[in-house]
């Protein structure tokens, strides 16, 4: 499956692009996708930091399965100083 992953703010600047394409096998999860992006762009975030992901405009856990056509975005920390999490 091929995804055009949208990057914002810090991630956009570090990748030098607001969209990066990534290929992952059928049945891949959010965690598989971020691993692939991080492999292509090792300077996106230090290895010990989790990258938060939104799928179809909703925060997604790493084990969420992806489907072709999903809109995937990488979400850097928001300005309140905490990692985004549901209310």
């Amino acid at each position, binding site marked *: 499956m091929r995804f055009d992953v*949208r990057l*914002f*703010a*810090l991630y*956009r*600047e570090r990748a030098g692009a607001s969209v990066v394409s990534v290929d992952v096998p059928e049945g891949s999860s959010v965690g598989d996708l971020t691993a692939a992006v991080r492999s292509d762009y090792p*300077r996106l*975030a*230090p290895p010990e*930091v989790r990258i938060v992901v*939104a799928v179809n*405009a*909703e*925060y997604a856990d790493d084990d969420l399965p992806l489907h072709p056509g999903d809109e995937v*975005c990488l*979400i*850097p*920390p*928001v*300005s*309140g*100083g*905490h990692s*985004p*999490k*549901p*209310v």
Partner: protein
Amino acid sequence: MIVLTEKPLDPVAVTDSVRKDGNGAVVTFLGTTRDNFGGKSVTRLEYEAYDVMAVKKLEEVRASLCADYSIEDVAIAHRTGRVDVGQISLIVAVASPHRVEAFEACHEAVNRIKTIVPIWKKEWFADGSRWVACEDHEFADEAEHRHAHAARHAVTTGD
């Protein structure tokens, strides 16, 4: 009322949108660009949003506040793009029959916005910029570079 816009925000419109005859209290928060951070002079801020999700999450904040507090209505307006010193980036207005709930809900609304809404803030200084709240994303070599820079700066200015 939920607004996400690159244009200057209008506090009167946001506050008036929640005022109703059954309310005795309206609390309005204005977040403005402060001219300093950590002793450094800030020249402007820049906000970047994941628009579709930001609007959805602002609606969620509004709905969750109305569910959690005895309030009548919440309105939120957030600006994106460049926001100069003294200008408004965020407005939250809460109307309630009673003032205690209006104050608590408005404060909590701001906290929730800054926790779950995908809007990012960049501070611009005379000598650079930084994305706010991304300290945990600094690489070890960046930290070394920053410390070396600070040390050189201390020598040249003699402080």
